[in-house]
């Protein structure tokens, strides 16, 4: 291994960028999917639906107690079996590492988003539910028009901070040999024996993105705060 070689970074840059695009794609899928499913989980718990609420609680506790790598391993193994059972196929249906990653991040992040949203739901004064009821609103309308808009706005800085952690966590798909930013860096590092250049570049890219995103969250927090709750 020679001295620090900037040209090796330049040569690998398009490949790294491609990897970064996958990391961002996975972040967006995990964010959107996790937010929808997580909101559902939070509502089920908040409304204390019979049967569903304890299941949601158990699901959230389980997901939050085990490491993401373990969850990735689980789904990599389980999804083909679930698909076999669901489609009636005679053998497990392999879905590959990329789909495993999309599904795992959606289901895993949902547990974290759910707890954030649930905390927001708890902060809504009871009077709002009573007032909505007095106005003749259905439960669905109450949550959709009155409660959730406030909750999502209130917890959005925490949701975004969690999403930055989600972006960092996408690097763990390394264990499935996916070519995300870290995977791309690792592949070039081993092929060209450029460990120092590749891993430092990956580290700097992650740091710049996460740092910039945190600053943006801080700005949003002050600018879009609901005045009375600021």
């Amino acid at each position, binding site marked *: *291994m020679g001295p620090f070689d900037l040209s090796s970074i330049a040569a690998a840059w398009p490949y790294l960028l491609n990897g970064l695009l996958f990391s961002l794609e996975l972040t967006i899928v995990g964010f959107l999917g996790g937010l929808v499913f997580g909101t559902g989980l939070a509502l089920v718990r908040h409304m204390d639906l019979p049967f569903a609420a304890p299941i949601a609680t158990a699901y959230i*506790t389980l997901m*939050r107690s*085990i490491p993401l*790598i373990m969850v990735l391993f689980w789904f990599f*193994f389980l999804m083909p079996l679930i698909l076999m059972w669901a489609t009636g196929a005679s053998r497990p249906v392999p879905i590959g590492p990329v789909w495993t990653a999309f599904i795992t991040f959606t289901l895993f992040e949902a547990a974290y988003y759910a707890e954030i949203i649930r905390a927001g739901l708890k902060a809504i004064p009871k009077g709002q539910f009573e007032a909505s009821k007095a106005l003749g609103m259905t439960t669905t309308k109450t949550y959709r028009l009155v409660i959730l808009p406030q909750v999502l706005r209130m917890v959005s800085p925490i949701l975004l901070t969690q999403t930055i952690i989600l972006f960092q966590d996408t690097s763990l798909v390394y264990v499935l040999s996916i070519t995300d930013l870290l995977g791309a860096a690792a592949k070039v590092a081993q092929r060209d024996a450029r460990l120092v250049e590749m*891993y*430092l570049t990956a580290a700097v890219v992650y740091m710049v993105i996460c740092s910039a995103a945190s600053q943006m969250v801080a700005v949003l927090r002050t600018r879009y705060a609901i005045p009375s709750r600021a």
Partner: protein
Amino acid sequence: MSFVLFETVQDGDERYLDWLVSGLGWTIGLAAAGGCIAFAIGVIVGSARTSRHRGIAIAARLYVEVFRNIPVIVQMFLWYFVLPELLPKELGDAYKKLAPPWGSFVPALFGLSLYTAARVAEQVRAGIEALPNGQRAAAQALGMTELEVYRLVLLPQALRIIMPTLTSEVMGIFKNTSVALTIGLLELTAQARQINEFTFQTFQAFGSATGIYLMLALAVYAVMHWLEARFSMPGQGLARIPRPSRPGAAGEKA
């Protein structure tokens, strides 16, 4: 179906259960050592973030920005792959030749503890900033040095305030130990994967490891809850002193 954990491993007289126990040992060892270092550095850096000396505050801010914003797996790679290349040759070679599992454990410990320290530091800072300004002013008026202000007045209160949020960091450090498998440490998740590869009993291998992680999380929760109660001070709003409830009293407030 038989329990594969109690079977003897191929070419050896251990049982698969022993692998799992050994993995659990490294998981707890890494989490405990990493947690202590992270707490020590986190308290120092978090205090420094609120220092009135600009230079110290900026340096602490820089630490947090760097170590919080690089994924923990990348940090472990830096300590494992990159550090030995940057060290003087003899030192780097010695570092690479550390006997297993220390060759993986040491870089994993660096990565995990410095990352967690940055997160703890932000909470310590938040805790200190949550205190009224008068606390610092009063301590200074009593003639305390800056160090004494932190050690005797600010930190004892701030640390109590952040106790609940520290719980999730402790849980986090246990979960993040699994990242060390990527640099070759045979901790709990790695052992589960290995048992799966040897026996193809995936449900048993991953299931038992998952069960152990759940129990670890419960244990962490119980210990932190106990610590919180143990160190709570009456009148601080954090105290969990059982009070006889009287009818018509306002709802429970933690």
